[in-house]
């Protein structure tokens, strides 16, 4: 199972990396006499409403989705872990401050904040830069959820008898943290990561609405998935007739699924 998942992920990553070789234009070339076509030998997954090769777009979109979304999720989880652990280990003003910051972050009207941020970034930044900024933002802003979970996890773990026993053996806080707390929180962190990565993947598609992230000519799984919305409105029957539109969804499910299989699991007692 794990091997299959690893092979699958490897294949997906390889395909993504080879995208610039298979589709040098990043799937941006418009074949205007071939719009909305079903799969053919020239276009293995058909073409989109602008006549762009869906297969090429899927591959070049994978680069963004398989690299940047997990990177942003990793950033968010790392930040969340640091803050959550600090808040969990300390009692007193620091814990209060951190958990207040956490509440505030969760309650903020992100939409408007992102709007303001968008206004601060010059409109003609090169797409790759705006892409990086977007995912850095997602990563930097997404810490609160994981922090909350990690803090609770720290509290729970610290109260566990084996940690008390360890401290009774004279272990210093640093050892407790690095050798025991962190490894034991790993499944928790992995879970957070697995939950966030697809969320960020989709968030990227919605950020496109604000002019952040991947703008139209570039492909990402997020904006490829967004196309499914309009198909969904037309009813499930329409999907049966155009199954190839589901390719990005399949990509998303396969990659998150294999990540899930590969993720460390809690040891059963």
């Amino acid at each position, binding site marked *: 199972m794990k091997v299959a998942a690893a092979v699958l992920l490897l294949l997906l990553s390889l395909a993504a990396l080879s995208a610039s070789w298979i589709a040098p234009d990043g799937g941006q070339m418009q074949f205007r006499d071939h719009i909305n076509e079903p799969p053919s030998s020239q276009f293995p997954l058909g073409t989109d409403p602008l006549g762009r090769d869906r297969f090429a777009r899927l591959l070049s979109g994978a680069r963004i989705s398989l690299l940047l979304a997990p990177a942003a999720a990793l950033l968010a989880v790392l930040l969340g872990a640091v803050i959550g652990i600090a808040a969990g280990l300390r009692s007193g003003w620091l814990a209060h401050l951190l958990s207040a910051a956490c509440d505030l972050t969760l309650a903020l009207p992100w939409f408007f904040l992102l709007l303001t941020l968008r206004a601060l970034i010059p409109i003609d930044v090169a797409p790759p830069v705006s892409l990086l900024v977007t995912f850095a933002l997602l990563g930097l802003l997404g810490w609160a959820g994981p922090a909350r979970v990690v803090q609770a996890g720290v509290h729970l773990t610290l109260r566990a008898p084996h940690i008390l026993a360890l401290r009774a*053996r004279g272990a210093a806080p640093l050892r407790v943290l690095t050798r025991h707390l962190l490894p034991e929180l790993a499944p928790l962190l992995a879970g957070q990561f697995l939950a966030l990565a697809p969320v960020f993947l989709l968030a990227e598609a919605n950020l496109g609405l604000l002019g952040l992230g991947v703008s139209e000519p570039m492909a990402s799984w997020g904006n490829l998935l967004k196309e499914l919305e309009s198909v969904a409105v037309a009813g499930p029957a329409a999907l049966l007739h155009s199954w190839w539109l589901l390719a990005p969804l399949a990509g998303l499910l396969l990659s998150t699924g294999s990540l899930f299989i590969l993720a460390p699991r809690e040891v059963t*007692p």
Partner: protein
Amino acid sequence: MESALVRSCLTVNYSGKPPVLRDLTLEIQPNELFGLVGESGGGKSTFALALLGLLPPAIASLSGTLTFQHHDLLTLPDRAFRRLRGRAITYVPQSPIASLSPRLSVAAHLREAWLIHEPSNSSDWRQPSLAALHSAQLPTEPAFLDLRPAALSVGMAQRLLIAMAILHKPALLIADEPTSALDLIHQSAVLDLFRSLRDTLGTAVLLITHDLHAAAICHRVAVLYEGSIVEQGPPAQLFHHPAHPYTRALTSARR
């Protein structure tokens, strides 16, 4: 008498509530088998944790006196306390399996327990560990060393905790309810083990239990009731001439 190992006249309360221990007064002599008997929720574990300096500082407040050898445990800096913990004062906690790290093997437990106090002799952990396992009457072959806590029985887990507790030849070993998780046969075996450890290692043992009969192996037993020691003396005296009504209730009770 002036060279008592532990001297206590301790009051402890949790977050401003009525004290759990009030002027708990006792002395433990070096190499003594000392029993602390009292009902569940009476504050026995609280006393053990106070000796280890592990009461949660945010909610527990301690006053009175508590000394170990020449150390004043109530004012001892954290760093110095860490040097005592696990070396001079060791702890065998109440629920054996839950008190082991689920991810670590038997060997890893011992290795870590060694390294915490002997970081410079990091490669030397094996010899003393095997000796400790042997003293705790556990197997020493590699197959056993590779087991994880989930694969151990309760009794074995407890003996592993004991092995770690004697690794550094402590002056005081605290055993918190060591018999309560075991059946009768294993109970007497583990009590025998503590007695022989005290004999061979020269360790003092603080045996905490709610069962007066389990404390029969001790030299002296103190009875904890409503936060204070109401009576103490050799077990035979407590069994045959209990002075306090609570002690009398304990002698007639058998679980």
